[in-house]
């Protein structure tokens, strides 16, 4: 693999992927991929038991999720029209609730991440999400489900992949404690204040940046939900609070031990008029969201859901240094690879 770019500052990544043969024959890759399989087994078992219908996610469409920090969408020539590879299938998830009340995808996503993500140890250009959506659900409903999923996946791996956890060198005590206490909660505003207390700069109107998020993650005794992000930090589909305008009814799940964000989700805007205003607030051109806006005008179900990063969850459970180690064919920003 060739690093094509000069980043202008030392890359912080602890490791970079080797060539594909070395990667695929590395015992720790094999262990990570088997842990990944167990995670998927546990996720599917739990969601199926709770009445969710698994749908195969779309791969291309005229539009995709625009709410992705700094990343470029990848264009596809669709018979002379510009289509996109899915950065996430959020808009399709909302649409699919017209068929079923509870759905999920194990969805492949592609994001041309900015080069600065190369050194975060937790960004991949090609990755998968456990993408869940529930009609009529609240944020509390889906954070509870997300927590059940993470705990179930962890227990599955502890039970069936102890040897592989040995290979990846996971601290098993920390894993075994997971689920003994409920995950924590912290609002975005409280996180900004806590960071200020640690003499870190954090913008009250923006995402928590990656280094600050890692710091919060290192401080946390257990995973926690970071809630109520400011409006200017997320896509138009996250629902704005009616009682606290300017904040969103959304969340990220932040793992402990410095592993950082695993999941983003929230309640969704479903009202056509509000969606249209929010589209403008996020600088989007409504014209390209034709099919989605038509559905919204005729009525979408209120819903909530999330996208739980599969490789990030595997990295966390397996205790890997970098998220690419949880992928068979890792692709990092700016790196040409198999």
């Amino acid at each position, binding site marked *: 693999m060739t690093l*094509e*770019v*000069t*980043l*202008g*500052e030392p890359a912080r990544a602890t490791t970079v992927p080797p060539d594909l043969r070395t990667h695929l024959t590395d015992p720790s890759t094999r262990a990570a991929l088997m842990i990944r399989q167990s995670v998927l087994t546990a996720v599917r078992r739990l969601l199926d038991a709770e009445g969710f219908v698994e749908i195969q996610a779309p791969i291309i469409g005229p539009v995709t999720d625009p709410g992705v*920090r*700094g*990343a*470029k*969408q990848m264009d596809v020539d669709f018979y002379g*029209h*510009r289509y996109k590879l899915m950065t996430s299938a959020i808009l399709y998830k909302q649409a699919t609730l017209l068929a079923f009340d509870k759905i999920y995808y194990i969805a492949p996503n592609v994001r*041309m*991440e*900015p*080069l*600065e993500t190369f050194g975060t140890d937790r960004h991949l250009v090609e990755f998968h999400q456990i993408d869940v959506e529930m009609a009529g659900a609240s944020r509390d409903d889906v954070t509870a489900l997300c927590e059940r999923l993470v705990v179930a996946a962890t227990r599955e791996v502890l039970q069936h992949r102890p040897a592989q956890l040995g290979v990846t060198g996971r601290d098993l005590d920390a894993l075994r404690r997971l689920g003994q206490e409920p995950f924590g909660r912290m609002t975005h505003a409280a996180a900004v204040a806590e960071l200020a207390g640690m003499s870190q700069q954090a*913008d009250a*109107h*923006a*995402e928590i*940046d990656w280094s600050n998020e890692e710091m919060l993650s290192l401080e946390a005794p257990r995973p926690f939900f970071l809630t109520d992000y*400011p*409006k*200017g*930090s997320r896509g138009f589909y996250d629902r704005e609070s009616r009682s606290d305008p300017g904040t969103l009814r959304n969340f990220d799940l932040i793992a402990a031990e410095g592993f950082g964000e695993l999941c983003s989700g929230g309640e969704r805007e479903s009202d056509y008029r509000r969606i249209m*205003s929010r589209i*403008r*607030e*996020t*600088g*989007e*051109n409504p*014209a*390209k969201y034709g099919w989605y806006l038509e559905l919204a005008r005729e009525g979408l179900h209120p819903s909530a859901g999330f996208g739980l990063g599969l490789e990030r969850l595997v990295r966390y459970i397996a205790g890997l240094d970098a998220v690419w180690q949880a992928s068979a064919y890792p692709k990092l*920003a*700016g790196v040409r690879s198999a």
Partner: protein
Amino acid sequence: MTSSSPNILRAEGFPAEEIRRRARLGARAVFPDASGYGADVFGEVPTGNRPDALDRLRILPPLFTPRRLEKLIELGREPMPADVDLRTDIGGLPSAFPLYLSALGSTKVASTRLGAAAARQAAQLGIPMVIGENIAPVNGYRGDDDSGGSMRRRISAYTGHLNGDLGGVLVQQSTEDADAEVWNQIYSDPETGPILMSGRLGFELKLGQGAKPGLGGMTLVDRDVAEAMAGRYAFDPAFDDGPQRLRCSAPGTFDEEILRQQIRLMRNNFPRARVGVKLFPGRDVATACAVAWEAGADSVTVDGAEGGSGWAPTVMMRSAGLPLADCLARISPAGQCLCVSGRMWEGARAVRCLALGARAVGLGRAALIAVDEDPDAGLIRLVSALTFEMRLLISALGKYAARDLASEDVGGDLVPEPGYPVGR
């Protein structure tokens, strides 16, 4: 100094001949023809174009100059015009002068060699460059031809001639151009990595155009280009009986909350990039400036109704929008970075704008004329004349830094409007 260029560029109502003279002669052109020195007598120089309210403002040097005394003490000698410090910071981009190269649009004259020549010279001068919002959608992002028209070629022409730590590139995007994801593309492009990492890349959210306030962009495009754009842009049938079609952009829908949130999202999504906002000269321009600065914009640029190198219906150019003087009268930057453009080409207009609150002024049409006159150094010489005049005027005002200019420095026969800052 002769030029090999064919001088194809026309700019009606603009003092093109005077600009071309400066592009040839540089600072020497600030003076009357030296061949008449000692023999001719000189009065007020006719500029050949009708002065607007801003040009009618007089620059008012004082007799008593406490700041000159400070400078004298600092230097240990009498200060001279060359001691005037013109360096500044334009929305976070360090600049050798309070000048920037305005967006030259996707029109044919700017898309060919002139755009690249202007970019190269702006870099050499150490002043920031703004790239028009529809360059990428119209001319492509990468582009394989040698015309210099594509977005990347325009950026490369600039970054290939960077002057030390100075300058920077500000890339515009407006409502429909968001489809092309210009900002995301640049932000993840290895080629722009060095200017991004050195803090010299910015993105400018564009709300309309100076030459056609309240309307979106309009360009005539060849039929094959129009076909490629079908579905992404609207076309008006006005020109359909000719070889080209009229592409019309929507102006975009804004209210205060939409503007505020778009700026916050830019800061959120592109944390390493500077954030600018470009406003057309609307009647609520002061409110829009305040919202933009409050939301965290590093700079706000106002294109006076006199501005714009783009193609616009004459009724809009004649009748719509606030003149720059009125914009400056309404806006209170209060330490924030305000950039203005509109008929800029010489030092006095620039000094007046700075005195009325602007941090920097943009060269648009004048830059195009200058590089049309001499593609190698026309803009460099024009700026040399302009900055020479600025230094003369600022030192005459008893000041030695462009940022010290204030409303006390201008006055005269402009009829003050309520709240006008002149003479405070």
